[in-house]
């Protein structure tokens, strides 16, 4: 499973934020349905559309005409005859609100349309073309932001006093600054995507690319900007009317009604509630609608429905382990039994991501966990450190040096995590803080672990950098992560993992992002650390070459389960599970050049689709009816070799 991507606030979800292998059978529901599915979205949409429809249909809905006054019923509160009461001339407030919403909302719509139209065109063009265009447009947006909005508007309404609409033109223009800047920055990001390159290779013009590729991609931010600008426009249009501009008494408008209510405040304070409330309700529903729309638009591509994230917690292991489950053998540093990790699915049920993993790791040894993406390798590694996916639960047992890590408190875990079990991830550059020099980042970690003084921590940081064979540690310590190469950065993360003098290092694909020559150096470094200090390594990898060099023991994972476990020498020559066998043979190094490679048909199924019986049966050439009947247990083959296959004896025949 890939790491959880950080939520992006712009409403633009990166294309890579989907876990590998994400599939869904059904067509995604329409945008409207996705908005309505969220309670807040449904409420906001109903309120907003309700207000618009009611105002548009004012002649049909309003109980009275906008000017019908009854001098006998002035400034009344709500009653059966006048649901929202009457104003100072005895006119029905509800009727006037409905009629008064028309000029207000129409004016706001005019300003919004102008702002979004200009904002989209200028933002997209400047983000896409960059260079001089971008500089000119950005300058223009800055200029707009410096304009005194109210002064400009008052000048315009003084020239055209009879209507709000002329003033909406400059308002839309000035409000376009925010959409220009936001849409420019999202376009800058989208422009780097490879499908833009593919479109250029296909000979699309820049205009076609902007229309076909950029616009649909940034629909979310455009919609969000529209709702924000819309809300501001409603406020501005009402504000102008409140000040008496652009309306002709006695014609109703929301702003002028608030002004009337304000002047009658002493006699009837209720008058303010419906008039101010109409404006507040419209603005609020627009704002909420914008939030929900942004999420709903992103969901279409990412398939991730947002949900509340419960605090990550580990379930206690009480009852989940059979009594008398194997105690760790002597000399074993880490003993994992029946480790399970679950995470909540979109429909509220719990998905099992890791299903009953068991292994032992002894000092100075390396256990490699191998498998394709989506099989639960990384989830397993993180679970040992007490880190579960969002909202997930860890159960089972992981005993380290006599203490139980599963269900341990956060403070107990902190005493182990990093200090006694170090972690190295795949991407060293995202693992390091770009704002800190490598030396100060390391010293900070050292101080957190040992509580020593700053000078001592700095000395220890230099020692660590020397220990990971960085030449000239003092120079490296003064550099920021972006100033060093990927290989150097990975050495710095190894130094950080060593800061607490750990007994175990969990290395999750530590060389996948590196060049082969750098990989060779990093692997040699890990082995040398192991030889000199007896560190145990839990290595997550999908590269058989790395397994061959590093591993003493191999655990092959498929669809959340261990399917095979044995010594490294045996796995290459005598795989006892068809998955391992096919994975080994899919490596082009083992096949004659140009021949068809044995490949595994299909892909790893999603956790929700894991079958009851053998999980590999759907892709397995040896599968028979009995494979799918019931769960297959791990079966002992010989010499401690275990396999989750009941037809492993036929493997040799097929080869």
């Amino acid at each position, binding site marked *: 499973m890939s790491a959880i991507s950080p939520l992006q606030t712009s409403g633009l979800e990166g*294309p890579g934020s*989907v876990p*590998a*292998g*994400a*599939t*869904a059978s059904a*067509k*995604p529901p329409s945008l409207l349905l996705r908005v309505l599915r969220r309670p807040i979205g449904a409420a906001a949409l109903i309120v907003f559309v309700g207000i618009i429809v009611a105002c548009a249909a004012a002649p049909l809905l309003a109980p009275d005409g906008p000017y019908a006054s009854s001098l006998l019923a002035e400034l009344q509160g709500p009653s059966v005859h006048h649901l929202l009461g009457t104003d100072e001339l005895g006119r029905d407030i509800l009727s006037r609100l409905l009629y008064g919403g028309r000029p207000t909302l129409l004016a706001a719509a005019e300003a919004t349309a102008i702002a979004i139209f200009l904002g989209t065109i200028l933002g997209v063009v400047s983000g896409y073309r960059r260079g001089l265009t971008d500089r000119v447009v950005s300058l223009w947006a800055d200029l707009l932001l410096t304009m005194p909005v109210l002064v400009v508007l008052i000048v315009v309404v003084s020239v055209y006093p009879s209507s709000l609409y002329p003033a909406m033109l400059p308002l839309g223009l000035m409000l376009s600054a925010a959409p220009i800047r936001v849409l420019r920055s999202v376009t800058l990001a989208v422009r780097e*995507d*490879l*499908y833009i*390159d*593919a*479109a*250029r*290779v*296909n*000979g699309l013009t820049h205009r*076609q690319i902007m229309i*076909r*590729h950029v616009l649909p*991609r940034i629909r979310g931010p455009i919609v969000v900007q529209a709702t924000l600008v819309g809300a501001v426009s409603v406020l501005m249009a009402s504000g102008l009317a409140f000040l008496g501009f652009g309306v002709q008494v006695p014609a109703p408008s929301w702003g002028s009604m608030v002004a009337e209510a304000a002047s009658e405040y002493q006699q009837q304070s209720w008058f303010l509630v419906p008039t101010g409330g109409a404006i507040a309700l419209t603005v609020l529903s627009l704002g909420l609608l914008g939030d929900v729309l942004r999420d709903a638009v992103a969901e*279409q*591509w990412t*398939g991730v429905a947002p949900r509340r994230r419960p605090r990550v917690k580990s379930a206690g292991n009480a009852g989940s382990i059979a009594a008398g489950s194997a105690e760790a053998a002597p000399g074993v540093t880490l003993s994992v039994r029946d480790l399970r990790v679950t995470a909540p699915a979109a429909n509220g049920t719990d998905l099992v991501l890791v299903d009953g993993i068991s292994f032992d790791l002894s000092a100075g040894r390396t256990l490699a966990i191998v498998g*394709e*993406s989506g099989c639960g390798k990384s989830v397993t590694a993180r679970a040992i450190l007490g880190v579960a996916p969002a909202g997930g639960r860890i159960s089972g047992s992981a005993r380290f040096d006599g203490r139980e890590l599963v269900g341990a408190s956060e403070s107990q875990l902190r005493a182990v995590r990093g200090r006694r079990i170090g972690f190295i991830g795949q991407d060293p550059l995202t693992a390091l803080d770009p704002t800190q020099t490598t030396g100060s980042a390391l010293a900070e970690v050292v101080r957190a672990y040992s509580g020593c003084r700053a000078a001592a921590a700095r000395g220890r940081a230099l020692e660590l950098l020397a220990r990971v*064979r960085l030449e000239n540690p003092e120079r490296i310590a003064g550099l920021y992560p972006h100033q060093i190469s990927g290989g150097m950065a990975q050495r710095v993360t190894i130094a950080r993992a060593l800061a607490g003098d750990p007994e175990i290092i969990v290395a999750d694909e530590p060389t996948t992002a590196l*060049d*082969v020559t750098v990989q*060779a150096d990093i*692997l*040699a*470094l890990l*082995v*040398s650390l192991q*030889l000199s200090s007896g560190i145990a390594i839990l290595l997550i990898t999908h*590269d*058989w070459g*790395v*397994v*061959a*060099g590093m591993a003493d023991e191999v655990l092959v994972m498929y669809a959340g389960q261990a399917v095979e476990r044995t010594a*490294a*020498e045996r796995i*290459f020559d005598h795989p006892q599970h068809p998955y391992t066998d096919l*994975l*080994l043979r*899919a*490596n*082009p*190094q083992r*096949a004659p050049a*140009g021949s*068809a*490679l*044995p*490949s595994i048909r299909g*892909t790893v199924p999603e956790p929700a689709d894991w079958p009851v019986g053998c999980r590999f049966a759907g892709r397995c050439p040896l599968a028979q009816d009995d494979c799918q009947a019931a769960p297959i247990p791990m079966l002992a083959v010989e010499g401690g070799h275990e396999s989750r296959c009941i037809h492993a004896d036929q493997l040799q025949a097929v080869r």
Partner: protein
Amino acid sequence: MNGTEAQPVASPPAAKLAPLLEVRNLVVSFHQGRHVFQALSSVSLQVMPGETLALVGESGAGKSTLGRAVLGLVPVSAGAIVFDGADITNAGHRRRVELARRMQAVFQDPYSSLNPARTVGSALSEPLLVQRRPRAEIGQRVAAMLERVGLPEDSADRYPRQFSGGQRQRIAIARALMISPDLVICDEALSALDLSVQAQIINLLVDLRRELALAYLFIAHDLDVVRHLADRVVVLHRGVVVETGTAAQVCGEPTETYTKELIAAAPVPDPRQERRRLVARASKLVEPE
């Protein structure tokens, strides 16, 4: 693809044939503030019709830059790019539209190479829309191509997010082959894939090459894949060609030191041999300096 459209099987590249793609003394420089960084310094290579030429090297060697320069995605500082006898070094837009019919690309990241906001069908029809083919033909072609790369029929109406990485790479390959190009530039097209999926895609690329007489400019860093797939190999190092030869020569008996290092660094899936090599390297580090 249906059988009637299949083109004759590619014959092995003969010396007499004119190269399909020729890159002569190509220089590409990038300006980073006041610094000028030369990504490619005078690189020359040739791709014959129906040939698979692999371009290998480590990150920063300039291999992707070369592919992008050929595709017109980065400006060329000096040198020439010749496609089928015509100079395309700084081809204008109209020329690029013509070239798109003969030269296509498959990129590394199957997530970023498909627009998440557009359906698969719309991604596949794009190359044909630019060439102004009739709608009916486009629809048929999309269906045929999806079937050829092994995707379900209903894929055209679905969004990229509903597909796995391997399936997305199939979609990207299908998009590149929609207008039957002569040359496909594969820029690290396999490196984001799992081993079993990588094998599927390698097989697909090999089959398509045979059926459609395609030439590949195959940009990669994995020498095992290159040895398996390529006819000839060009090794790039810091923007310079260090070695050229047949795949068997370069991967089996390299002559240049850099190529030897590159091959020696790649781990082999044999625990006895690989463990011995790694421990030997590691023990050099353990000894006190």
